[in-house]
């Protein structure tokens, strides 16, 4: 069985996380931002899997299922909010939806 060193696995998860973060920062469309958040979630979940595999403990995989559930709920609410935002502002550009400032 091919074994990849654990540092490489963590590095991969880290790259995934930063990709998500960068996507979050540079994208202006709310839908893409939500997708970037999903990527970041998944990179965090990946770290749990890596840790579970590394120490042969199932807790990490259990945690990942939790994260999947939370993500599903979050996406449901997030998409609903995005729909409302679009309905209200006729745009999904976050820089234009900035009514909550002084």
């Amino acid at each position, binding site marked *: 069985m091919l074994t990849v060193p654990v540092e490489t696995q963590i590095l991969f998860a880290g790259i995934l996380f930063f990709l998500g973060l960068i996507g*979050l920062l540079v994208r202006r469309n709310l839908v893409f931002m939500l997708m970037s958040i999903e990527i970041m979630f998944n990179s965090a979940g990946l770290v749990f899997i890596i840790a579970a595999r590394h120490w042969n403990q199932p807790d990490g995989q259990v945690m990942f299922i939790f994260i999947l559930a939370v993500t599903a709920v979050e996406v449901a609410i997030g998409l609903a909010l995005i729909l409302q935002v679009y309905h209200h502002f006729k745009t999904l550009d976050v*820089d234009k*939806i900035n*009514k909550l400032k002084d």
Partner: protein
Amino acid sequence: MTNLIVLIPALPLLSFLILVLFGGKLSRKVAGWIGAGSIGVAALLTIIVGISFIKSLPETKSYSVVIWQWLHVGNLTANIAFRLDSLSLVFIFVITFVGFLIHIYSIGFMANDEGFTRFFAYMNLFVSSMLILVLADNILLMYLGWEGVGLCSYLLIGFLYKEPANGAAARKAFIITRIGDTAMIIGIFILFLSFGTFNIQDIMHLASAKWAIGSSLAVITAALLLGGALGKSAQLPLQTWLPDAMAGPSPVSALIHAATMVTAGVYLIARTNVLFSLAPIVQTIIAIIGALTLLIAGFSALAQHDLKRILAYSTISQIGYMFLALGVGAYSAAIFHFMIHAFFKALLFLAAGVVILVLNEEHDIFKMGGLRKRMPVVFWTFLIGSASLSALPLITADFYSKDAILWFAFSSNSGGMVLWFAGIIGAFLTALYSFRMIFITFFGEAKTEPTFNAGKLMTVPLIILATLSVIGGFIELPTSMGNFHLFSNLVNNTLPNIAIKNVEQLEWLFQLISALIASIGIYLAYRFYFKKPAYIEAFNHSRLNHFFEKGFGFDKVYDVLFVKPIVWLAEIDKKDIFDQLNISISRLAIWGNHFLSIAQNGKLRWYLLSFAIGIAFILTLMLTK
């Protein structure tokens, strides 16, 4: 019987309250008769009280009534208590009696004024405060009356408030007298600290027991009280407010700025004479100030154009005589002159008020003239008043009072040739400017036509006062002629006798000189102002005359010395230099708010970036520990 003295200040106060509270609902007639009537009843009570007081003179030569306790804190006690003695009796007599005549006159004089009830309310409050001032048995209550008359003076000078200049004159009077009052209240504090009581009689007894003659504390206290007296009585160097105070209606000038209030300083010094005898230097200063004031005011009166300003300067000058008398210790002569002066100066102001009123507010004497035939009653009463002011020998009352002062200025132990000489020059000036007024106003050709004739309400008080200006002098005749001392015998129950040098046999000579001087003054006034020679015309345009007219330039000097620097400082301090410290704190908060609210720009991605930077920062901290 003497318990009635409580009612004497209470009645005008009551009338003041009625006029203030219900003045709008009362008709002019009712308001006028309430205002004048309350003073009338007070005058009647004064006569009743006075007669019973003189008839059965108590052992202590005085009579006190305590009404209630005013203040009681620790060992500080002040009562609302009145004390009647011969000094306050003379004052309440003049205040209520002359005040009553002036109130009657005011009913006629103010008849067409829109502030009729307001006028009577203020006048009543004034009379009440003045009565409290002279009847007070402790110095704190006296100070209450003292400030009360100052307030009324301010209100009445600014009575015709629609003219901004009148308001300025009122403020000037208030502020300048306040300078003196500040000195006085400090003096009162020193007295309380030293003796632990406010009661005037106790203070006097304790002072003569505890303080040595000429001790520094006595000198300082006497000087501070003198400061108050100088402010109120318009003496050098605080005399500048009185000529401007003529902005008030004529009855106000008559009652407040001639007959009563301005003599409050004389009363104060006479009342606290023990303190001044403990401070001989201060007493000498009083005499010198009196002599200087009477000269300066005399010269100034000679150059005025405004009828009321002439009378104002003559008031300053006559009070100068009273101060001269107080300074040489001739207390009874000062009080006698106060009483006679109240009669004829009230008369002169009221008569001048009639002249100004019927000539449609014409104040300039050079635009008058020839009024002798048109208004005979006013002419004759004004003539009697002026004759009295210039101390026409033998027949006028002022001859006896001024002559007494001049005699004592020379013969008193603390008097001398210089003071007498200043007084005699002043007497000459007085005669000159009094008859200058007469000749210019009432003789010559008519320049302005009277618009109407004054009613009986105005002329009857004139006649009564004119009578008093003549016969008032006969209650006190000098030793050399008649030797009749009704007045000084009465007043000396309270005030110390004067100690004079051994020159008594010379008194007739001095009387002769002053009689001659007064007559020469009147004759020269006739030569100068009736015949109108060219050199007088030339003098009228000279610089010296202008200097006299401006009252020796005191206003200008004060303007440069005090007013300008204070205005300059105020101008600088417009931004409240010391407030800047406090304001800077709020500035900092506002600046911080602006700084932080930059971050609240509503850009979601901006927030996220700061989030990420924050996390990176914290992680770096954790990892590099």
